[in-house]
C-alpha cells in the first residue's frame, strides 16, 4: 500500500467555492486544514477521501477580530500558534491562549488550526494504528466492523474526543458557524459534538466550520483549563477540565449561568457537568463547594481502556482536576 492513498487536491480561494466543492463531491471529499490529524489517519487508511479540499487558501478564514460588544470571532483556519500570539486573545482571553498552547508540540501548533482541533476525530488504541497493525484483529465499529475491542460485546464505539481547545471554548459559551452551499447555521459549540464515537461532530458532509465566536468576557468571570499529561509537550490529554466561574465580593456569583464545568477526554465528546451552576452559585469558593461538583462530575463519566491512562486513573482524576480548574478560574476571576 502506498504511504498515502491517492487523492485529488483542491484549494478553493473563497468560502463560496469551498461550499460548492463540498456539494459537488459530498462524501467523497474531506476538508483538510493543518492536516496534522487527517494526514496521519490517511496514511493509516482510516480515511481515504478521493478529494481533499484545503482550507488554507480560503480568504479570511484565518482572521481574528475582537469587538467590545460582540466579542471574539476567529476564522476556523487560524493556526493555534497565531492564536496564541494574537493580541486580543492574549489580552482578553488568556485562558484560551493557555489552552491552545497545551495542544501537542510547537511544531504541531505551527500548522494545526482551531477548526481542525474542534473537528478532531475521536481516538482509540485500537483505531489510531496502522493498517498493518489493525490486520491482526477483526475490524471494529469505527473501521466498519461489528465488534469493539475495548468493551467486549458493545454495540457502540467509545473512542475518545480529546481536542484541547473545545472545553474552554464551551465554558466560555462559544458558538460555531457552519457554512454550506445552502447558507449557514450557527449552533452552540456544545451542539457541535454528537457524543458518537463513530461520528463525533455534527458537521454535515456538505458543510464546513467557518467561524468560532466567543462572547466578550463578563465582568467578574474567570476561566481556566487544566490538562493532565505525562509529558509537558506532545501528549494528548490523559484528561482535562475547563471551568468558568463568576465571582462577586469574594464569593461565587449568585447566577447559576455564570458557571460551567466541562470534562475532556473521558468520553466521545467534551461533557458539561450538569447542575454545576446550581451547586456553586452563591457559595464561598472553598473546597466543600467544589467537592460536590467534583463528585457529581466523577459520577458522570465512564472512561474506557482506550487511551493513555487507565480508566480507573482517569476517573479518579476527574474530581481532582475539577477542583484545580475551579480554583484556577476563581483566581482568574478575582485578579
Amino acid at each position, binding site marked *: *500500500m*502506498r504511504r498515502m492513498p491517492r487523492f485529488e487536491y483542491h484549494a478553493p480561494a473563497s468560502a463560496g467555492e469551498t461550499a460548492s466543492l463540498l456539494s459537488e463531491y459530498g462524501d467523497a471529499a474531506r476538508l483538510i486544514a493543518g492536516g496534522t490529524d487527517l494526514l496521519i489517519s490517511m496514511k493509516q487508511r482510516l480515511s481515504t477521501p478521493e478529494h481533499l479540499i484545503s482550507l488554507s487558501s480560503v480568504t479570511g478564514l484565518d482572521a481574528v477580530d475582537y469587538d467590545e460588544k460582540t466579542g471574539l470571532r476567529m476564522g476556523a483556519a487560524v493556526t493555534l500558534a497565531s492564536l496564541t500570539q494574537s493580541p486580543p486573545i492574549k489580552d482578553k482571553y488568556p485562558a484560551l491562549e493557555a489552552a491552545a498552547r497545551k495542544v501537542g508540540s510547537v511544531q504541531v501548533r505551527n500548522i494545526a488550526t482551531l477548526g481542525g482541533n474542534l473537528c478532531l476525530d475521536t481516538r482509540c*488504541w485500537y483505531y489510531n494504528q496502522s*493498517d498493518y497493525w489493525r490486520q*491482526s484483529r477483526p475490524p471494529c465499529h469505527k473501521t466498519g466492523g461489528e465488534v469493539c475491542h475495548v468493551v467486549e460485546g458493545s454495540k457502540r464505539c467509545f473512542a475518545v474526543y480529546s481536542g484541547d481547545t473545545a472545553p474552554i471554548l464551551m465554558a466560555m459559551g462559544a458558538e460555531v458557524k457552519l457554512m454550506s452551499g445552502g447558507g449557514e447555521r450557527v449552533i452552540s459549540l456544545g451542539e457541535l459534538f454528537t457524543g458518537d464515537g463513530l461520528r463525533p461532530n455534527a458537521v454535515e458532509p456538505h458543510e464546513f466550520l467557518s467561524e468560532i465566536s466567543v462572547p466578550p468576557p463578563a465582568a467578574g468571570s474567570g476561566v481556566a483549563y487544566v490538562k493532565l499529561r*505525562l*509529558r509537558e509537550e*506532545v501528549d494528548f490529554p490523559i484528561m482535562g477540565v475547563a471551568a468558568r466561574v463568576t465571582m462577586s465580593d469574594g464569593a461565587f456569583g449568585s447566577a447559576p449561568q455564570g458557571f460551567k464545568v466541562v470534562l475532556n477526554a473521558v468520553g466521545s465528546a467534551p461533557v458539561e457537568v450538569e447542575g454545576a451552576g446550581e451547586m456553586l452559585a452563591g457559595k464561598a469558593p472553598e473546597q466543600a463547594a467544589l467537592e460536590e461538583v467534583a463528585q457529581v462530575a466523577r459520577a458522570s463519566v465512564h472512561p474506557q481502556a482506550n487511551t*493513555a491512562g487507565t480508566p480507573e486513573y482517569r476517573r479518579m482524576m476527574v474530581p*481532582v482536576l475539577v477542583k484545580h480548574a475551579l480554583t484556577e478560574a476563581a483566581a482568574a476571576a478575582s485578579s
Partner: protein
Amino acid sequence: MSEYRVVGKSVPRVDARDKVAGKCLFGADIKLPGMLQGRMLYSTRPHARILNIDTARAERLPGVRAVITGKDVPRRRFGTIVQDEPVMALDKVLFVGDRVAAVAADSLDTAEEAVSLIKVEYKDLPSLFDPREAMKPNAKVIHKDWESYGKGRFRTISDRAGNICGHSEFSMGDPEKGFSEADMIFEDEYTTPMVHQGYIEPHAATAMVEPSGQITVWSTTQGQFELRADLAGLFELPMSRIKVIPTEIGGAFGGKIAPLLEPACVVLSRMTGRPVQMVMSRRDEQIAARPRHPGLMRIKTGVKKDGTITAREVVIILDSGAYADFGPGAAYAAAVGGRGPYAIANARMEGFCVYTNKPSGGSYRAPGGPQVTFAIESHMDAIAEALGIDPLEIRLKNGLKEGDISYIGKRIERGALRDTLHRAAEGIGWGEPKEGPNRGRGLASAQWSNGGAAAGLTVKINDDGTASVVTGSVDATGSNTVIAQAVAEELNLPMSSIQVVTGDTDTALNAPLTGGSMIAYNMGKAAMLAAQDTRRQIMEVAAERLGVEQEKLRMENGQVWVKGEEDKRLSLGSITRTAQRFRGTLIVGKGSLPAPAPAFMMCSQGAEVEVDTQTGQVVIHKLVASHDVGFALNPDSVEGQLQGGMVQGLGAALMEDVRLNNGNVENPSFKDYKIPTAVDFPSIETSIVEQNSEEGPYGAKGVGETPINPPAAAIANAVYDAVGVRITDLPITPEKILEALREKADT
C-alpha cells in the same frame, strides 16, 4: 590541572557544525544511480506457521523489480551469541514483526503497495508471552531446532536449554553460611518493561552487488567489521568480497548491530542487478528492532543489624523475545554484576534469558545493567529503611573500598564510590531541610566495566604537514573528536590540522563496534600510539636533515625545532615531502593494541523530586550524576554522555514502556511511546571523578553506558523518601504511585 595541551580539554566536536547545520549525510541520504527502494513485510502474528505466501499480485504490480521470501535468502542463521535468527522467516513466524518477505521497486510507494499485496496464510500457534512460563520444563519449545544452532562471535558466555537461550551462574564465598550469619534477611522482586533506544535516525541500508558478485553495503551499523562478518557468514563468502561502508549514525545506543536489513538488500540487489535501499519507518523501528529486554529480578540479602551485608542472592530473568541476539550477554552482565558496587563476600547470582513470542531484545546501552541496578539499588534503600540506617551510610559502609576486588577481578585502588556518593549526596542537598512537603531525595550507585578488542588505526602526515587519521570505529558518541585530540596532543598540532575519517572495512584497520563503552578507551589508545609512532618517524627524518640528535629536537605547532637554536627548524610539511622524495619514506604512523583489559567504573546519582499526591505525578527538581571516568578526555563530551545516559534512564524510570497487546506493540510511534522531551526534566549537574585506569589512553575509562544504570532507582528512592511508597515495577507512573498511596492509607 592536567599537564596536557589538548586532551582533557573541552574542544568542540569535530562534527558539530555539520550536524547542527543539517549537512551531515546519514544512511538514508545515500543515493545511487538506478537505486531501488526496498520494503519489508513483517508478520502480523505472534506465533504462527506460514502455510503459504502468495507474492503473485505484488510481482505483477508495475515498478516492482523483485519480491523475496524465506525461500530466496541464505538458509543460514545469524546471531551474536546464538545463531538462531533467519534472514527471513522460513516456516514459522515467532513474533509480530518477524521478517516475512521483502520487495524492491522503483519507488518507495510502489514497494509499500507491493508489500500490502503479498498474501500470507498463517496457522496460529499458541504464544508464550511470559518468560516464567516459557522456562518451565514442560513449556512448548519456541525454537525446536535450538540444539543445532551455531555459536556467534561471543563464544564464552553461557549455556542454554530449550527456551532458555542463556543461563549464567556465579557464586562466591559461602552464601548459605553468609545468610545464617545475618541478623535479618530481605527479599524483594522487581520488574522492568521493554524499552526502546529511541534513536532519531532509523536503520538504513543500501546494497550494491556488482556483476562480478562483489558486494558493497552502506549501513547505519555501529560496527562495519561485525556486519561484514555476519554477511560473509550468511552468504558464505570471503570477507574480501564484501565491503561495508558505515554512514554517519544518528543515534544507536546498541540498537544498530544486528543485520536487520542488509541481507535482504543484498539478495534483492543480486536479483535485480541494481542497488537496493531499505529504510525502516518509525513503526518498523518500534516493532522490529532491538529494544531492551524486560527484566524480572529476585533479590535476597542477609544483613547484620549495623547494615553490613553478609550474603546476597540474585536471580535475573530477561525476556529475550523471539531471538537471543545479545540477550544471553545481558543476562550474564546483570548476573555477574549482581552484587552491585558492594563488597559482598558470599553471593550467588544467576541470570536467565528466555525466548518468548515478543520482539527480540538486543543490546541497549549497558545491556542488563539498568534492570539489575534498579533492583539492587531500590533493595538497598528498602534494607536501610528497615534497619533505620541512612541510605547514604549503608552504601558507604558496604561500598567497594581500597583493596576490595571488583567483579571483573580488579583491585580497587582508591575509594571512587565514596567520592561519587559524597558528591551526588551533596549535590542534591542530602540531609538538608526540604523546601516543602512531598519532596524527597534519592541516591543510587552503580558499577560497570567496559570492553576491549584488538584494534588499530593509522595517522598519515600530508604534504602540508597536516594529519589524516583513518579509524575503523563509527562515531556515535564524539569518539572521532577524542581520536583527533589524542593525535593533536602527541604531535603537538592544533586540532584544525587533524582530519579523522571513519573508514570502511577495506580501508580501515580493525576496530571494535561502537558499544561497550570502549571506543575512546580502545581507539583513543590506538590514536595515541599511532601518533607516537608518527612522531618517531618525523623526528628521525628531522634529526637527519638538521644534523642533530633526536633528543635535541622539539616538536610544536607543525614545526620541529632544535632546542635553543630558534632559527634551526623544519616544518612538518617539508619533513614529509623530503622524506618522500629523498628517502622514499611515507610518514604513516600505526597504532595497534591487543584487546585491553576492561576498566572498572563506579558512579552515584541523586535526584530530588516532588510528588503530587493528588495526581501521582512526579516533578524532578534536581539531578546530579557523579562518575568515575578515569580521565575526562573531553570534559564536555563526558558531561554530554552522563546527561544523555541519565535522561534515557529517567525516561525508563518515569514513562517509557513498549506496550504489548497480544504480542502487538500498542504504541509504535513517538507520540505514544513516550520519551522525555527537553521541557520535562531540569538540567543535570555533573561531577567528574578521575581515578586513572591502567590501560586506557591518558588514564581514561569508559563513560557511555554507566550513566543509564542508576536513574530509575534514584527516582524510586526519592519517591519513597517523598511519600513513603516504593514502586517496584517500572515505569513509575502516576497510576502506580496513587495506587500505592491508597494501599498505604488502607493499612
